[in-house]
């Protein structure tokens, strides 16, 4: 009787695990392990109220829950949504964010392996796709470790707890008697009594709940009953484990999103207006009749060509003749009068994010006031390749292949665009040609979905170069005014910093709202023109401090090539270029060395430690004022900058050389001191900091979107130059401050905000001239060296 019951139960389980009744095997095919698991669960359950006691009761309930081959729905409160153990013992963790190439998968695998007590090599991380991961917000604000790892760590610890309890039941001992090594659970008291994770649950599901805070996106958290390991016991976390996810790129054996091939696909190229804000008057379809199979696809101002072959789509896009109706008014600014425009522009919204004391009182009491204004241009993501996406819109469901760094929101955006339930849409995340925020990938996937709907075919759309440079959402241009109030002893008694610029979220940083996409706007959805900016990240303790921002209207509302959104360390470079140059200006005006000034006003122990280590490592030369003119063609200087970002604190010293004949700056050496709490992988942090530094250096020295009243003029690498290998620093020295007692915070984009001011401050040290407008191009450098009027205004 008992035998029959057990066999039936196990058979059902097995059948469910295979998912197909036709492949079910007979009960007699059950393994000893399966029988034991079922048997153990039944026996313990039956006697749960008896002699096993309360803690054993809960253990038995948990363990019984595990004997299932049915995967529960992919909800955040299911352990199986986060971690799985394969029949071979391999561990998969499901990450609802993505890794854009910084090696996040390695760090995450280390954290999962640590809590589960398995070898690092056994852990695989599944990234971002909407059918395999819950929405953790996609790549966002360098939160991959800081927030994104938390559910994975909790799930790994909870899985370990359950597995140890299962092992206790199976081995007939207590959990206290068990140790885990590399996924094998062993009794401490009885040698040879062992069972592996795969024998406990391989290929099956935990079917166990975890607590979920009912939030999706970045704030999503879960909690199991397990106690997490203490950092002091970490063996895998903290190790410089090398990247395992790079070889496929180097050997060319894997796929970027543009390498995905879908049978029956149509190739598309978007045709967007040569004049910002223009609308389509007419399209001459006969202009592409020479191209085999090429067709025009149009809905209102959304216009594309499609063809069976990619080259034909490219040709058709070039040949297509379109008459455009210019907008009623051109844009109210161009690159020449941009900062004057910003100064005078109406304020849509002002927000005073940091308010300490009363700055108006401080400025009234001041014996001296120092003030300065700084300018930062529009910048383009200009990713290595223009975006590509593939969409297959069918009545029974929509499939997307997207490199959007927020695939769950891209899914929602496509569903909203097409007017269908997001459950009908599956978004496969595939890495694209670089992503540093909301670049052109978000528009590509929305374009592809609309084109697939309109053509009834799967559509692959890839941009041409201008789609990635002219048409990507831009990092906002801004002006920043800073004032410091000094008392009679030169002590800072008040500080005011106000940014005025275009919104950081004129279009949202994710794609969920189709009003934020070009296709939506081209088809008549009104732009949202969202409002937001930011304030400096620092910990200066001035008695009165005001940090505020003001956002001005977009230059055009609908489908603007200058619509603004997030680009790596959104508004951090703009703001800190100004705020950290200003600190240098105030330091020298008050006769203090720039590092000494920062140490004086940023008194926290972590800041002090940071500055002290940076000063030593960088071989900083004390300066209380400009050291005076240098002889020779090459002028040398040092400059410091400091920042906080999302809990990470950091500072850098730049050593630069200025060629006074060519105006070229070579940032020869950087020293970066970086404190992001617990370090998961020091090698990963090194590469991440280096990449962030070099990219920010490019934005500091070269990058500026050119435009006139009618259109963006930066369309390629000649009109939007970035740095070259010649600009690579000779060395980057790091001071990585590890604080195992503190949770890890972001390293992915904190360094970026140090670079502009560290270079500009070094430029002042070299030349005695302030560069208050970025980028520091050779042309601007030569002009500044000629014009010595660029001096701090002192009243």
């Amino acid at each position: 009787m008992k035998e029959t019951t057990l066999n039936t139960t196990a058979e059902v389980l097995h059948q469910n695990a295979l998912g197909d009744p036709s492949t079910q095997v007979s009960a007699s095919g059950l393994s000893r392990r399966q029988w034991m698991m079922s048997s153990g669960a039944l026996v313990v359950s039956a006697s749960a109220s008896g002699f096993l006691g309360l803690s054993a009761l809960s253990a038995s309930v948990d363990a019984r829950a595990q004997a299932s081959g049915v995967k529960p729905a992919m909800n955040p409160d299911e352990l199986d949504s986060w971690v799985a153990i394969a029949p071979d013992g391999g561990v998969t963790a499901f990450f609802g964010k993505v890794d854009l190439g910084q090696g996040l998968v390695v760090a995450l695998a280390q954290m999962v392996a640590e809590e589960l007590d398995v070898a690092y090599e056994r852990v695989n991380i599944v990234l971002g796709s909407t059918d395999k991961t819950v929405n953790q917000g996609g790549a966002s604000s360098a939160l991959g470790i800081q927030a994104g790892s938390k559910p994975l760590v909790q799930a790994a610890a909870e899985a370990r707890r359950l597995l140890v309890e299962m092992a206790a039941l199976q081995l007939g001992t207590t959990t206290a008697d068990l140790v885990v090594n590399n996924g094998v659970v062993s009794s401490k008291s009885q040698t040879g009594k062992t069972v592996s994770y795969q024998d406990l649950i391989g290929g099956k599901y935990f079917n166990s709940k975890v607590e979920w805070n009912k939030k999706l996106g970045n704030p999503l958290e879960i909690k199991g009953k397990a106690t997490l390991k203490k950092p002091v016991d970490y063996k895998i976390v903290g190790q410089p484990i090398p990247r395992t996810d790079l070889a496929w790129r180097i050997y060319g054996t894997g796929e970027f999103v543009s390498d995905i091939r879908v049978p029956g696909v149509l190739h598309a190229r978007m045709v967007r207006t040569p004049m910002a804000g223009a609308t389509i008057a007419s399209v001459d379809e006969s202009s592409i009749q020479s191209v085999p199979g090429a067709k025009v696809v149009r809905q209102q101002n959304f216009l594309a060509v499609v063809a069976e072959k990619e080259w034909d789509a490219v040709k058709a896009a070039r040949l297509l003749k379109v008459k455009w109706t210019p907008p009623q008014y051109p844009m109210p600014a161009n690159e020449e009068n941009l900062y004057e425009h910003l100064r005078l522009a109406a304020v849509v919204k002002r927000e005073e994010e940091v308010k300490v004391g009363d700055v108006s009182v401080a400025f009234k009491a001041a014996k001296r006031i120092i003030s300065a204004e700084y300018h930062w241009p529009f910048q383009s993501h200009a990713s290595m390749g223009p975006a590509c996406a593939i969409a297959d819109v069918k009545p029974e469901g929509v499939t997307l292949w997207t490199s959007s760094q927020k695939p769950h929101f891209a899914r929602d955006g496509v569903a909203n665009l097409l007017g269908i339930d997001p459950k009908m849409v599956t978004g496969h995340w595939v890495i694209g040609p670089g992503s540093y925020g909301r670049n052109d990938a978000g528009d590509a996937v929305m374009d592809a979905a609309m084109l697939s709907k309109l053509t009834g075919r799967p559509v692959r759309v890839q941009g041409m170069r201008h789609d990635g440079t002219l048409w990507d959402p831009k990092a906002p241009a801004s002006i920043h005014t800073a004032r410091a109030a000094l008392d009679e002893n030169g002590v800072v008694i008040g500080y005011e910093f106000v940014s005025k610029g275009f919104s950081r979220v004129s279009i949202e940083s994710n794609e969920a709202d189709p009003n934020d996409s070009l296709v939506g706007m081209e088809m008549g959805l009104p732009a949202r023109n969202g409002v937001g900016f930011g304030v400096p990240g620092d910990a200066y303790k001035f008695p009165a401090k005001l940090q505020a921002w003001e956002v001005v209207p977009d230059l055009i509302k609908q489908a603007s090539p200058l619509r603004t959104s997030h680009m790596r360390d959104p508004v951090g470079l703009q703001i800190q270029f100004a705020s950290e140059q200003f600190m240098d200006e105030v330091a020298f005006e008050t006769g203090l060395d720039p590092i000494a000034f920062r140490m004086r006003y940023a008194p926290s122990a972590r800041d002090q430690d940071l500055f002290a280590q940076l000063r030593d490592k960088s071989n900083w030369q004390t300066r209380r004022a400009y050291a005076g003119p240098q002889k020779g063609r090459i002028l040398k200087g040092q400059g410091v900058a400091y920042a906080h970002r999302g809990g990470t604190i950091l500072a850098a010293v730049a050593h630069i050389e200025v060629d006074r004949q060519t105006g070229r700056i070579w940032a020869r050496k950087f020293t970066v001191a970086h404190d992001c709490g617990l370090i998961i992988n020091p090698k990963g942090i090194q590469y991440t900091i280096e990449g962030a530094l070099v990219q920010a250096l490019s934005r500091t020295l070269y990058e500026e979107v050119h435009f006139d009243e009618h259109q963006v003029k930066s369309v390629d690498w000649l009109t939007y130059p970035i740095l070259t290998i010649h600009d690579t620093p000779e060395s980057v020295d790091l001071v990585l401050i590890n604080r195992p007692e503190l949770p890890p915070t972001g390293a992915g984009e904190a360094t970026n905000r140090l670079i502009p001011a560290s270079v500009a401050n070094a430029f002042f040290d070299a030349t005695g001239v302030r560069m208050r407008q970025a980028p520091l191009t050779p042309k601007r450098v030569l002009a500044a060296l000629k014009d010595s009027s660029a001096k701090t205004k002192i009243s």
Partner: protein
Amino acid sequence: MPIQTDDKGSVQDMSTTSFKVDGQSVKIDGDPQMPLLYALRDELGMNNPKFGCGLAQCGACTVHVNGVATRSCVLPISAVANQSITTLTGLGSPEHPHPLQAAFVEEQVTQCGYCVNAWLMTAAALLQKNPHASESQIKDGLKDLKCRCGSHLAILRAVKKAQTAMLAKGVMA
């Protein structure tokens, strides 16, 4: 080369172009003005090289034509008739890596990786031609390539490491 005129008078250049890719003979039917990049990717289904700009400004599309690093995005296939093309997968493999590939893996080079084809193919041709290239010669040879993620420090470390390894092995003696 046969020239066909359709009923509307448009000129259709249709022809067959033959060349070798990574040692294999291939034939492409179609527009001889089609850039090699599209032939490799769309007609032959290869994942490397990459489209980066279509303007020969970034290097993502670099292949070797008879050993010379060439931008395939602006090179019509008519120009490579009967020539020998090498792509990234022809440069080396995980089993038989080119020293540059081995060095890039060791030095953990690149972030997103979309540009890596550019650096590997260009550096391979450069070191083949000038095995003893100085650091400034290496930089000069790579200066027209883009990397948007800012992996330049690691790229330079890896190229120098590969050069050292190649010289030590006498690969380029």
